């Protein structure tokens, strides 16, 4: 069973569209994250949630809105997509220090 699963794996969309990426973890972890990895492979934290509550918001544009309906899910909705949003987005979860990552969603905005 996949511990942290994200859907979709690939997403190609036009500028201005709104899209969502879903993430689910079956590890029973309290903390979930969204990371963005750019073309240079730099991994940057976007959001951190603990028990459905937002803990960290790393000055991400408010076009990005995370939603956590329960502690096993953390979805990412992006409005008015821009070319610069093209990247790989990773969901992760942790209970203590070790983070478990999903396989990533490669978003391409054209």
């Amino acid at each position, binding site marked *: 069973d996949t511990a*942290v699963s994200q859907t979709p794996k690939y997403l190609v969309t036009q500028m201005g569209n709104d899209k969502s990426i879903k993430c689910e973890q079956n590890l029973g972890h309290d*903390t979930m*994250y969204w*990371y963005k990895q750019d073309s*240079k*492979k*730099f*991994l*940057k*934290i976007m959001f*951190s949630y*603990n028990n459905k509550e937002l*803990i*960290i918001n*790393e000055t991400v544009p408010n076009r990005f809105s995370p939603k956590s309906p329960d502690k096993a899910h953390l979805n990412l909705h992006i409005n008015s997509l821009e070319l610069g949003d093209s990247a790989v987005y*990773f969901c*992760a979860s*942790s209970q*203590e*220090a*070790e*983070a*478990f*990552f*999903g*396989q*990533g969603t490669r978003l391409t905005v054209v």
Partner: protein
Amino acid sequence: SQQGEEDPQALSIQEGENATMNCSYKTSINNLQWYRQNSGRGLVHLILIRSNEREKHSGRLRVTLDTSKKSSSLLITASRAADTASYFCATDFRGGFKTIFGAGTRLFVKA
């Protein structure tokens, strides 16, 4: 910036050789972790070293931590082609709710 910075950015070695990657960070930490990322995949946790530890081993991995220099190193001994990947160090802030990753070292092991 709080991010760790890995050095070198890229490393190419022959199978059987040892690979050493370094990481520097800027603020006090509770622990430091190393992760591996295979191309097109998510990150996988390798090893964690706490701030009160100086060295830790796991299989062919050896991690050192020097808190006075704010640096860590990851040594992979007897490398294999399957070790080809990017390696990231990560440090925790805000009680563990914020894990910051460096830019990674791309390791290429030639068979």
